[in-house]
């Protein structure tokens, strides 16, 4: 006997509200495709372009605990802010992020990354300098490549020293779309 959509949603909401989840997630529609968005009690912990949510869910269950459930309610705030961002009504995200699993160097780089303003770009080398590791441009590139929370932590604003877009975890066309949206490139 099939569970009604209403009952299903009621359970998901209650489970999240009772604080019983290690991770709540949902899929958010945006102009650059579907985003997998996950949050813990501490804050936003993952945004993924991977169309295979099951793989992302399994990975989260391994690293964060098995109580991972799709639950729309805890994602509402992120969803709203992403909508506003893609509507060009928001330039800064006001969200807590959970970087507990990031190694110390990665966390420092990601915190510096969060300060790169909307509509501007910086380089891997410059970000390395700001993170007090001026010679670690390549390591910074690796951190960008593994950024757990793209868009909100704006690794799309980091480009090569010659101004080329270099790479992006979600594909170069998405990096370009985000920079165009922000008016950083034409």
């Amino acid at each position, binding site marked *: *006997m*099939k*569970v009604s959509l209403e*009952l*299903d949603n*009621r*359970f998901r909401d*209650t*489970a999240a509200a*009772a604080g*019983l*989840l*290690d991770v709540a997630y949902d899929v958010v529609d945006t102009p650059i495709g579907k985003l997998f968005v996950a949050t813990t009690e501490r804050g936003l912990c993952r945004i993924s372009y991977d169309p295979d949510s*099951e793989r992302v*869910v*399994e990975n*989260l*269950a391994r690293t964060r*605990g*098995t*109580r*991972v*459930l*799709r639950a729309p309610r805890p994602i509402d705030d992120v969803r709203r802010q992403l909508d506003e961002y893609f509507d060009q009504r928001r330039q800064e995200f006001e969200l807590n992020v959970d970087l507990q699993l990031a190694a110390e160097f990665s966390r420092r780089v990601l915190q510096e990354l969060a300060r790169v303003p909307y509509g501007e770009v910086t380089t891997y080398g410059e970000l390395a300098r700001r993170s007090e590791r001026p010679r670690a441009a390549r390591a910074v590139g690796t951190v960008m490549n593994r950024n757990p929370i793209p868009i909100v932590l704006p690794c799309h604003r980091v480009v090569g020293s010659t101004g080329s877009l270099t790479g992006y975890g979600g594909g170069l066309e998405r990096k370009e779309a985000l920079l165009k949206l922000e008016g950083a490139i034409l």
Partner: protein
Amino acid sequence: MEAVATIPPFESFYTEHRDAVFGFLARRLGRTAAEDAFQETFLRALRAYDRLEHGRYLRAWVFTIAARVAIDVHRTQPSDKVSLGPEPVSEDAQPAYLELEHLAEQLPPTERAAVVLRYGYDLPYAEIGAALGSSADAARQAASSGIRRLRGKEGIA
């Protein structure tokens, strides 16, 4: 294959078993009462989920929880729609299912679930078979071999 079945993310566990659990509760309690019982069953499962040691027999596990929730609902809200029959209570007034769960702890999980669901919760074999993802016959066999094993252990002839 891994030696120990890994515990799936709760999402996969929930989506795999939710319809069967709801069907079971609806047959026991009627559709309306089944909705609250459904929620309670999966909340209890969620509370215990991070203490599971492996991912085997999850279906039997969640059905044992559902059967207990059905009894709790029956106890607190006796209504015309609920048709569980007489409440299974043993002579010293400890509910039969509690005593059995304790006794059956040492059994292999399928036998344990079959014994507890049959003799503790008074479920028909067809429903136990559905709960365990097998047939009524398989459920009957599991229950009777579980009982044989218990008798052997307890030294009852």
